[in-house]
């Protein structure tokens, strides 16, 4: 499964909470709801909206404690050809 383009709940270490609060302006919390833009060897790149516009924030893997992805969601509709 790829994380890119998925909204995830991210549980991070205490150190990461402080960094995200200062650098990304996110409220200090045990977990964050974030949109992942992409991942690489360094960590995951999340989209963050700030007053000056959109930002991509790198959250390094060593600060990630857990990732929660909602999967039980299905939308259906009938389609007439």
């Amino acid at each position, binding site marked *: *499964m790829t994380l890119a*383009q*998925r909204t995830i709940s991210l549980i991070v270490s205490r150190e990461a909470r402080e960094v995200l609060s200062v650098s990304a302006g996110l409220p200090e*919390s045990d977990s964050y*709801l974030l949109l992942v833009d992409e991942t690489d060897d360094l960590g995951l790149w999340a*989209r963050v909206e700030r007053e000056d516009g959109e930002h991509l924030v790198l959250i390094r893997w060593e600060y990630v404690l857990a990732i929660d992805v909602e999967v039980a969601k299905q*939308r*259906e*509709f009938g389609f007439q*050809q």
Partner: protein
Amino acid sequence: MDVSVYGSRVFGDDWREAHQRPASDLPALTLAQQSRAKQLRMPEEEYARMVLAEQLSTDRLIERTAAFGNLLDRSIKSRGIDAPVRSVKLDDLHERYEVEVQANGTRVPLTIDGRLVQDLLERGSAEAEASLSRIIDLTLGRRVIA
């Protein structure tokens, strides 16, 4: 044809659009969503923007899934095979399409790799088109000519 999408994702354009919409356009949160926003110490408006972005992207995924279903149906017909597509489901979590076609009175399941569909619909890849034709021939009983 029944079309469904399992899983969810958010495209960058939809995330941006959701963040530019006035607050009055945002969906009302369910009690569970309000509770989750509180747990995350996230303003409800910000949470609602994430919900809206997901809704916009899901609409696009449904459109893409329906487009693929129609394309597959046409492709099967063009090969002279009587096997209409009955349902197409995008399993976004595993990046594949699960299709059911009606052939000889029974429903035949097909699984198509999502990357192949992406190559076909977004890049118009001739190679992806050939792969899809080969899948149709192999699964629906036509002889494949190398």
